[in-house]
């Protein structure tokens, strides 16, 4: 077993997409461990608190008229003229990786254990050592067309501070309404449509004393973790799918074990979209987005060894915690294959919890029948009386419902 370290830098991140074509940032063997830094793509909502003085973050977010350190942001076109910028923001998450796993082949399952998760403290002179995050009620949020207060519509950024002295919790510092921001290339972003645009704090009006006396319990986790899909070379990081990705389940934190079907040789694991806290549904469009560092362990399960294990027949991401198993249902379980050439654009027009619930039901039924050897009648009865279905997210185009079954149900006496 070896322990690797992967720091953030323009060379070790890819922004807004998964890809089987990106050269691995790290190659390791099954059983190895790695400490991986991740950055939130919302750090520029408050440059002073979340980027300034942090060499890793500064290098990744560096963007002047002459030099944009990470040019491509999203799976969209990389040749201009651009509406928003290279990659067109079709996919927004800063992902560290990919990490290639020696010997991984399509049909295998990659197990990723999260051993530890730590926040990334501010390095700026004024805030050194303290941790901050940003929550955005954005145009892709569930609430956006259903606002009751003026002005309508509006996007609102709320900056939180994470307190880890005791039971970790987050407290709001201030918020502001998004105003048009001009990026170094001269493109004006009148709404939040491209990641990593620095917000000029001279253009916004900070409102303090918000959410006073409200403490949000921390749930440190990674919103986006997954493998490169095989269907396309560049795949938007927004819709989650069969190789994982932007699942946005807060249970994918310390102690979690995620299982992903390998779709391309080497698996190509990437991680990012770190969150300090999120509720089931991620209603406003984002969590409390906070840069985090994780310790991971990677175990490759070869296709030939899956029979008779809990991974038999697995064709979708699955979570195991100490207490439970969760399967992830989506509006389209594999939208890339199901929606054809325009899948990455089409998916946003089909978002539905009803389809996601249907998918979660089917996946959990399969799990109970294949892994626990139940008959269909037994599986259905058990799901009704012992499994819980919840809303994972309603903001990632391919909406999610998770089905959870507790492990203590299977404990024999």
């Amino acid at each position, binding site marked *: 077993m070896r322990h690797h370290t992967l720091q953030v830098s323009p060379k070790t991140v890819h922004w807004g997409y998964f890809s089987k074509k990106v050269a691995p940032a790290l190659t390791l063997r099954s059983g190895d461990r790695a400490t991986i830094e991740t950055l939130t793509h919302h750090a520029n909502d408050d440059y002073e608190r979340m980027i300034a003085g942090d060499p890793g973050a500064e290098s990744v977010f560096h963007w002047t008229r002459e030099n944009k350190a990470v040019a491509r942001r999203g799976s969209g076109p990389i040749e201009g003229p651009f509406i928003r910028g290279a990659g067109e923001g*079709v996919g927004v998450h800063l992902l560290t990786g990919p990490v290639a796993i020696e010997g991984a082949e399509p049909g295998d399952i990659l197990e990723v254990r999260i051993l530890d998760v730590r926040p990334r403290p501010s390095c700026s002179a004024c805030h050194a050592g303290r941790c901050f995050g940003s929550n955005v009620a954005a145009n892709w949020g569930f609430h956006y067309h259903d606002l009751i207060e003026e002005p309508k519509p509006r996007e609102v950024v709320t900056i939180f501070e994470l307190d880890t002295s005791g039971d970790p919790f987050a407290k709001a510092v201030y918020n502001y309404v998004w105003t048009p921001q001009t990026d170094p290339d001269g493109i004006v972003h009148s709404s939040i449509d491209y990641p990593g645009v620095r917000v000029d704090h001279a253009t916004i009006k900070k409102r303090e004393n918000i959410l006073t*006396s409200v403490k949000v319990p921390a749930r440190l986790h990674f919103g986006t973790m997954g493998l490169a899909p095989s269907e396309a070379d560049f795949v938007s990081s927004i819709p989650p799918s069969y190789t994982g990705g932007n699942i946005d389940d807060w249970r994918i934190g310390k102690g979690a074990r995620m299982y992903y079907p390998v779709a391309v040789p080497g698996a190509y694991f990437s991680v990012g979209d770190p969150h300090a806290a999120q509720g089931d549904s991620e209603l406003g469009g984002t969590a409390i987005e906070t840069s985090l560092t994780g310790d991971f362990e990677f175990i490759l399960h070869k296709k030939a060894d899956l029979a008779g294990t809990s991974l038999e027949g697995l064709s979708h991401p699955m979570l195991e915690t100490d207490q439970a198993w969760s399967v992830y249902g989506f509006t389209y379980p594999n939208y890339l294959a199901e929606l054809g050439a325009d899948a*990455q*654009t089409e998916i946003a027009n089909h978002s539905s919890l009803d389809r996601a619930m249907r998918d979660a039901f089917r996946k959990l039924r399969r799990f109970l029948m294949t892994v626990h050897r139940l008959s269909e009648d*037994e599986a259905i009865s058990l799901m009704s009386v012992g499994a819980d279905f919840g809303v994972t997210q309603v903001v990632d185009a391919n909406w999610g419902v998770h089905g959870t079954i507790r492990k203590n149900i299977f404990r024999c006496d």
Partner: protein
Amino acid sequence: MELRPVAAAKGEGACMAQRLLRSSSTWVDAMSFRPFTSESYAQGDRPEAWRDVLAAVGLQPATSNPFYDGHATASHRQAPGVALTRIAAGAQGIGPASQANGDLPIALMPIEDGVVLRSGAGHRIVPVGHLVLLPRGGDWNIVFQRDMRAIVLSVTSEALHGRFSGKPRFSEPRVVASGGLADVFARLLDATARTLDTLGDGEWTAVAQSLSDLLLTLVHQLATSSPDAGSSATQAALLHRICQTIERRLDDPALVPARVAQAEGISERYLQKLFEAVGDNFTHYIRERRLQRAWADLSSPAEAHRSISDIAYAYGFGDSAHFSRAFRHRFGLSPREFRQQEAERSTAQHGVAGQRGWPQEALAQLRVHHGLGDIRTGAARLDGETNLPDMAAGRKHHHLPVEAARVHWGYFSRSLPPQIEIASGDTITIETLTQHASDDPELMIDGDAGAESVFGWTREQKNVDRRGAGPMDASVYGRGAGEGFGVHICTGPVAVKDAQPGDVLEVRILDIVPRPSRNARVAGRVFGSSVAAWWGYHYDEFLAGPKPREAVTIYEIFDDVATPHARAVYSYRWEPQTDPSGVVHTTYDYPGVPVRPDSVKRRHAVLDGIRIPLRPHFGVIAVAPREVDFVDSVPPSYFGGNLDNWRLGKGAAVYLPVSVPGALLSVGDPHAAQGDGELSGTAIECSMTGTFEVILHKKADLPGQPFADLSYPLIETETDWVLTGFSHPNYLAEFGAQGQSEVYAKSSLDLAMKDAFRKMRRFLMNVKGLSEDEAIALMSAAVDFGVTQVVDGNWGVHAIISKRLFQDAP
């Protein structure tokens, strides 16, 4: 499948990127569909929000009958110069929003009940389905005496692209006679309003354009042939009255000008002149109305049981061959072809025919007759002296045992006499039975006097006859009295002294214990049943045969061990059961049918080694709804009912808005365990006894309380607030007369999620004092939304917020 990488799309960069934009791109323009529901707003803010809804189509609340603050929904969509809104709200009056009178008149069509139009020309009734054109200013108003259900179209000159030459003058509201263009327009309006949320932007633009063109034509037609241009308002009123008379007498083959003129006390010649003034003649008008009415009946599923010649006869066509010819001549196809086409369309729209709840046809017929038969007979008298709180100010404890006379089965009703009256602060122990005890009568009924009394059913005697909100004569499906439109055995109702509509009832569960078997063979042990039933979420997609099937699993409950749990005992597949009255139930379509052990094949060793942790709770806790007398117990709604949320167990409380005097609290549907989703259709259904503390919060004392401004069931546990969202938060008000049928057809988690979101936003803003922005940030970061159930007609999504978030609050 080989997919083209997005990045490879060179040359079409900008255009491609435009389409690639996150879902936001579809929303930025002004074409988008906008839903409105009063659930978003605090009680006090509703009138203002409602004013905005009306203003979007040029209307405002009338000063005389303004909107009260009850339930209201609207779907709204606009294109440049065109705004269309479909409204469902309570009784109210409306008038014009502006004083200017330049643009085209507003078109309004009542869609469930007639309305009263008051203007300078006096009072007129506008019948359902008729169009009325309303000037944008002036002194008129429209009163919806029952519910406000209407489609409103506003077209301003912006939509007409300068083609609006010679503005017709409309100083008075005009009721448009049916027929011809008016009917085409009305039908398009109706069809568009129903599909507002699903039309693509391009489709909507095209439809909006057609609507404005048609409206313009119609307005011109009316302006040239109108009473304004010749006849007086008196003539218009007279003509309208005559038309109404004609409408009532279309069945009379001898409806001739002479008789109508005589009835109105005018000459036949004058009668003809009245029609000529509007560009018609009497004979043509009558024929047109008869054909139109026949057309409507032939297209209605509610009239499917009538033969074509019956319908022809009802509209004065004595000869059906003649009717066929006339119909074909008017509409281009024969009555038979037309009816078939409409039937196919209607089936396609509704998908799999739901057997649950009232079918629309039956509801339609029900309205013709009155009511549903007698309310429960043999209800116990008030347990007066012993239990009524008297001069002793202390809290009392009451006990409500279960027996036939103390339950109502499958429905809620504001008309039930209470079993007992208690005072606020009293505690009460209520015994409840699961309606699934009959899945194994030996284990769950035999020897138990209460259960035997409730389930007692022989050829001669059925102790609880009505089961469900359906007709007592089982005239819809023939399943049995009440038709199983609602299935839960509810104990009660319990009246709460001084409870009035507007108050909030807090029902706190102090304890909940399973009801052990009284059968000597297994005495003291506890059993329950879970049915994977035809209303389950899984039912239309079995993997293995036989398809479909219903399976019953009998569980034993172990509640006094270190980790209370349930284990499966055996299971069987449902086989047709003949009930004691001789009706055969091939599916689980009527509650309490005793399953004969020799009729099914028991499988043992099911769910071997699996222990299901208990979550004892009551699926049903309800106060009586205000809208109708008999309400199906299956779909939950604002009054509580079949909430099926396992968090409603010991230590939890539910707050319910009181709708009728005395509140009329009922409890039932006890569950030993259930998962979020209740996927198969049932939980582990197990008879249980609960002890409740019942506290009445008077309306005047509500401000400042977490349960102030309550229009839905609010659950409180030790650690959390749990808000209940539904596909249709108040389906009885939203769908009106069709509610008990529509709610089964139109459920969706997406709708329930929206409702849960709006309720949580309201809770955080009004109870916790947050701004909307704070509320949304908090919902994203800390509120958990989960699937309550997908099997109760009105699907549920709940939103949970931990009290811990606010523990530092002053």
